[in-house]
Structure formats: structure tokens, C-alpha cells
């Protein structure tokens, strides 16, 4: 059964079709959106190839088409296009319909600094686990960058990300084996904290956060160049 491909297509199709909805017309921004997604996908794919190679995680052939490039199944490569698109669409759709959606500046700052401290603490005790190490390192660096850049995107993204977490838990739940026999993607628990939210490793939440936040930073940076959004 080609379940992984089906998940990709289902996640992508609905937001993509709604991108043509007249009122919001999200598709007009396709250039910066796809460019940003691709720019972020490249380092994440390199990271993915490496971790697949050293066995931090891997894929169950039972749910795949069977085409691999550099250790990665084609579905995994599509993941970095489909899932960010669906999530980024959700972020901008929420802001379109609720333009004032934002945490106060001071609250955002306190949350950011607390997350950085928690993340450094987790890192300090788990430097010997590959996934935890890279995941929280990237997360810490991004959050510190956001504090120093004063771009204020987090005040919105902290809220929209909570909404994005709902489909995230469904999609990632299925990928990691909720509701199905076995799993599509397996994780080596020696290389992560071993904390699972249902079947999802805790690190995945921060992984998704870093990936999507990077895309949004890039979209916002390219905005003046494309004069959209």
C-alpha cells in the first residue's frame, strides 16, 4: 500500500486547491513561497540523507513505491514540499482571516527566552544523541536569531504553529505508526530522548517548528523583492 504517497498528496491537495480561492488568492505568492520551501528543503534533505545513512531513522518499504534517491524514498523527498506548503498555507490563511492574531511583544520575548533555556538544558544532557543534538541546536540558533533580528514574526507564528500542530499530529502520527500496522518511518530510540507524544518523538515538534519558521523567515525576506503577501 502506498500510504506515504497518499499522505503527501492528501496533505498537499486541499490547501493547494484552496490557494485558488478568490478572496485570499494565496497562489499569487507562489514564487517566494516555493522558492523559500525549496531553499529550506535542501539543507533538511542533506540532514535526512545523513541520518538515514547512519540509522537515526529509516523507512518501511511496505508503505512505499520503492524508488530511492540517496537512501531517501521519493515520498520522503516530496514530504519536504507538500507538508511545508500545507503548513505555510495554514499560517498565512489564519493571518488573512485574523489579521490581528499576535502575542504581545513582551510575552513573545519571555516565551522565546524560556524555550531557548529549556532547549539548551535538554541539549546539555543529551549531546550524545544525534537527533536530539542537531534538532535542539538548530532550534536554539533560530530562536536566538529571532530575538536579535527583531523581526517580530514569532509573535504570530507561536499562535499559528499551535494550529498547525493539529494536522501535524495526525500526519506525523500515522507516519510513526498510529492507527496503522507497523510504521512508515521508524526512529532509533538510542538517538533521541525516547519521549513519544503518542507515537511521535518529541524532537519532531521542534523539527517541524524549525523547518516552518525558516520558510516563513525566507518568505518575509523575499517579500519586498516579489512585492507580494
Amino acid at each position: 500500500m502506498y500510504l506515504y504517497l497518499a499522505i503527501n498528496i492528501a496533505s498537499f491537495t486541499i490547501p493547494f486547491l484552496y490557494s485558488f480561492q478568490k478572496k485570499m488568492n494565496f497562489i499569487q505568492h507562489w514564487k517566494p513561497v516555493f522558492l523559500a520551501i525549496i531553499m529550506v528543503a535542501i539543507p533538511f534533505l542533506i540532514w535526512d540523507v545523513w541520518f538515514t545513512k547512519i540509522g537515526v531513522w529509516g523507512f518501511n518499504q511496505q508503505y512505499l513505491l520503492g524508488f530511492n534517491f540517496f537512501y531517501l524514498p521519493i515520498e520522503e523527498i516530496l514530504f519536504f514540499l507538500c507538508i511545508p506548503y500545507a503548513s505555510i498555507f495554514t499560517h498565512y490563511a489564519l493571518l488573512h482571516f485574523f489579521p490581528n492574531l499576535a502575542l504581545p511583544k513582551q510575552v513573545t520575548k519571555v516565551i522565546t527566552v524560556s524555550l531557548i533555556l529549556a532547549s539548551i538544558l535538554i541539549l546539555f544532557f543529551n549531546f550524545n544523541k544525534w537527533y536530539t543534538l542537531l534538532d535542539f541546536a538548530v532550534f536554539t540558533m533560530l530562536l536566538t536569531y529571532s530575538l536579535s533580528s527583531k523581526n517580530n514574526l514569532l509573535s504570530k507564528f507561536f499562535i499559528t504553529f499551535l494550529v498547525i500542530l493539529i494536522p501535524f499530529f495526525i500526519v506525523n502520527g500515522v507516519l510513526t505508526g498510529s492507527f496503522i500496522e507497523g510504521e512508515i518511518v521508524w526512529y532509533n530510540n538510542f538517538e533521541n530522548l525516547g519521549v513519544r507524544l503518542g507515537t511521535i518523538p518529541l524532537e519532531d515538534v521542534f523539527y517541524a517548528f524549525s523547518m516552518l519558521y525558516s520558510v516563513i523567515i525566507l518568505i518575509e525576506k523575499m517579500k519586498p523583492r516579489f512585492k507580494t503577501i
Partner: protein
Amino acid sequence: MILFVTITVITFLLMECVTWLTHKYVMHGFMWYFHEDHHQPRYQNTFERNDVFFVIFALPSILLFFFGLQEGINYKFFIGLGILLYGIAYFLVHDVLIHQRFRWFKNTKNKYLTGLRKAHKVHHKHLGKEKGECFGMLNVPLKYYNI
């Protein structure tokens, strides 16, 4: 082996984050007492009160070297190494290149180094605790590299 190298590199990079945060929220926060004399225009003595931060940052590094060498070498040693290497880089950039406590690389034309120097000059424009800018040390806004 790759893990140990990665740990050292990541620690080095994270130390820039830690430095930025400490500088902004601790040195310009409740530990301003120690940092204040560093924002005075001239050095009064060979050492300044601000140098206490070298001791503060060296302590975890020393402890990590110690605990990283219990029963063979373990990953803590490489966190300590990352902190040490960052400390050396910090000293060379901040205390030598910028503040010239030793008269080395005085005439550098390297764009990255002169950029760091300019950004830190901007940080020192402010003599007080509040309203600072450019709290980073090895990573500063791009604009400073192109002046």
C-alpha cells in the same frame, strides 16, 4: 569520531547564542555591576571588573574537561572543548582585535574582521545599561561587512 567533532562545532556555534543572550540579559541586566566599567571610554588598569566573566565562562569548560575524562574520554570533554575554542576566538576578536589589549592584527583589511569591529564600536556607542544594540560577537548584522 564524527559525533565528537559535531559536538565541538555545535557547542562553538551555540556559545555565540549563549553569549548574545548573556550579554543582553545578564551583563546588561542584573550583572551590570561587573560589566559597567567595560563601557567606560578607557581602560583604567590592566584588568577590568568585566574580566570576571572570563572566570565565569571558564568554569563550566574546566568542569566539563574534568568530567569528560572520567573512565576514558566521553562527550562532555568535547562540549568543554567547544567552549574553550569559543573562549579563545572571543578573546582574539573582542579583547585583541577590537579593544587592542595586545597590539596584534591592528591593520587587518579582512572584511569579516573589520565588520565585527565596526559592529562592536556601535555597541559601545551606548555607555549605559539600557538601549544597546549589536550584542553578538562573531555573528553581526550583514550590513557591517559592506561599509
